[in-house]
């Protein structure tokens, strides 16, 4: 088991991830889509950061920019910087990036069905990853049939089994020989989590890790992630659209809307007293066990088309607190408003940082009847 004990990190202290004013464009046949327009994000060691937002808000692109996995083309980083452990990842060579992805950043993706290779057993795929961690990149040549490599292969296999054991994969000694289709969705996701831990990463990026799973399986996987965080001293970036998942697993949260982080801070502060009108709307739009019938609030309209976003703040057409300035000026940079919360909104331009847009959004409900600005 010692082979999977977490290393005492020899890396410098300071933030694990710093994203500053990151701008990403996607070239499409219909024009340039400004997918990220100045994202700021900072993960300190030990943070479990939830990155929430709706479809198309840029949360996955933000996450993928850390290991430089944004597909290019069509994606293109046009400004800003991404630093991992103090070093900029933009402009690193492919070999350096490969090391970074293998040793320092683990990733778990949404759909466990498409992220395992259906023609190889779990054993083969896990061993590949574990060998990579041991420094052998041309892993294909390491098989139990080469006598000189047998020890190495066995070592990688033991690590794989230990990892599978740790993520709650039942009876890994035998079932490691399964093919992905023989496993349930939850088990496949556990295999992927085990793989992501193989490199003993500093950072785990989980992109909608439970969206494809049923609630009870989701609960198991979430608890596993929570346990692993402590054990492996992980820093986690959890991308999700499910506010419940954030509340249960994360200690910090960043809310994104249409290519920008609009608010970030401690989970409890943000859930109890959200500052940005979009965060307020989002929290009230989720039915909970306490929501009374008819009391669910709506955010009117729909998310903007990023090919031709509205001028000024991209949220102002849906915002119950929109002022004249919001339609003209883009929102100000993220500003601290106390308690560790930062927010990018014109409402906080002045000195009244205690303002919270808590009043109900009655006045906009009428607009919803005639739905959908498109």
């Amino acid at each position, binding site marked *: 088991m010692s082979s999977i004990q977490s290393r005492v990190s020899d890396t410098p202290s300071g933030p694990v991830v710093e994203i500053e004013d990151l701008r990403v464009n996607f070239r499409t046949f219909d024009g340039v889509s400004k997918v990220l327009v100045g994202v700021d994000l900072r993960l300190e060691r030990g943070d479990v950061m939830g990155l929430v937002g709706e479809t198309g808000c840029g949360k996955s692109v933000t996450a993928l920019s850390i290991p430089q996995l944004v597909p290019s083309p069509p994606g293109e980083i046009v400004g800003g910087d991404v630093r991992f452990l103090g070093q900029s990842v933009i402009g690193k060579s492919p070999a350096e990036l490969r090391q970074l992805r293998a040793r320092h950043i683990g990733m778990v993706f949404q759909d466990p069905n498409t992220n395992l290779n259906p023609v190889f057993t779990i054993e083969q795929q896990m061993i590949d990853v574990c060998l990579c961690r041991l420094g052998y990149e041309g892993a294909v040549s390491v098989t139990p049939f080469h006598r000189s490599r047998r020890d190495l292969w066995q070592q990688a296999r033991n690590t794989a089994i230990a990892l599978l054991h740790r993520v709650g994969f039942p009876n890994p000694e035998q079932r490691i020989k399964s093919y992905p289709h023989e496993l349930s969705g939850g088990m496949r996701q556990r295999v992927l989590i085990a793989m992501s831990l193989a490199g003993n990463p500093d950072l785990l990026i989980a992109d909608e890790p439970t969206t494809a799973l049923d*609630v*009870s399986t989701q609960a198991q996987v979430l608890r596993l992630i929570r346990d692993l965080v402590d054990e492996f001293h992980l820093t986690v970036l959890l991308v999700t659209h499910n506010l419940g998942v954030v509340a249960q697993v994360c200690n910090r949260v960043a809310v994104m809307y249409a290519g920008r982080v609009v608010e970030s801070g401690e989970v409890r502060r943000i859930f109890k007293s959200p500052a940005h009108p979009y965060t307020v709307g989002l929290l009230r739009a989720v039915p909970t066990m306490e929501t009374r019938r008819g009391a669910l609030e709506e955010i009117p309209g729909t998310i903007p088309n990023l090919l031709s976003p509205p001028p000024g703040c991209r949220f102002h057409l849906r915002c119950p607190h929109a002022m004249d300035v919001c339609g003209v000026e883009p929102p100000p940079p993220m500003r601290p408003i106390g308690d560790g919360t930062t927010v990018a909104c014109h409402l906080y331009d002045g000195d009244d940082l205690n303002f919270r847009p808590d009043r109900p959004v009655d006045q906009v409900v009428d607009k919803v009847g005639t739905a959908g600005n498109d």
Partner: protein
Amino acid sequence: MTDAEALLAVRNVTKAFAIRGGLFKTRIGEMRAVDDVSLTIPAGTSYGLVGESGSGKTTLGKVILRLVEPTTGQILFEGKDLCQLTGDELQLQRAGMQMVFQNPYSSLDPRQSVKSTVAEPLVIFGRARGKELDDRVRSLIATVGLRDEHLYRFPHEFSGGQRQRIGIARALALEPKLLVLDEPTSALDVSVQSQILNLLLDLQQRLGLTYLFISHDLAVIRYVCDRVGVMYLGRIVEEAAVEELFARPQHPYTRSLLSAIPEPDPDHRFQPVEVNGEIGRLALDDRGCRFAPRCPFVMDRCRQIDPALEATGSAHLVACHLYSDGAVSS
């Protein structure tokens, strides 16, 4: 509640799919996606059907509309057994019951404009033509919160939420009494989901609709429905009024399901009830309770005898040996 008063009464419906295998693809067994299910929905109320993927909730929804033929059982819609109807009679009954599908991206014909999509049922049933048809379509579109300028657009020009509105308008065209809503919001974002849920509540109130609401999201079910049935591997294992079910869940499966929901409240850390493994397939030689392999309270009896759905309180039905024969425990 007698079946005559209910708008929809489903009695002992089973849908079995053949499992074929071997050299000549002969029938080697059957998979009962819906197994001996009965439920009653009074007019003007909403019945929620929840369960995990593979529990048979969508199949049951389709069986009720006879989009999938039931193997056995009766489906009484306004007192008439749909399974006995054929041809024109069936078509006539179907006008009274419509479905809204899960995925608004695949349930609309990309080559039909909004107008022809919504008008199609009216044309097929010869309910309106010419100017009258035009007016009807316009008023339907307005009912679901779209505008006249949307009429001549095509589905790809709309967002997911707007497409779902089109799907709802189409379902409402024939003035149905029953709407089967199969996960109508699960493909939508939260901010849009709340719009659609409120629209559905509003329509129910205005038009006196009856809903069968299929979802895996318990919070959504709680928000919309009056009565809930929890499905597990083709069976309804627990059924009760919404408030009752959420306040006093009894079946171990329901309890584990409720405890597994991550509430969007950081002060409410969830403590999921341990259940073993995941929802599986039904074994061919099934005996006993389907939940027994995963149940933390399993007894010998559970592996031998399949529990029946019985009342434990007023109108609270549960299929579990923990509650049968007065052996009530928790």
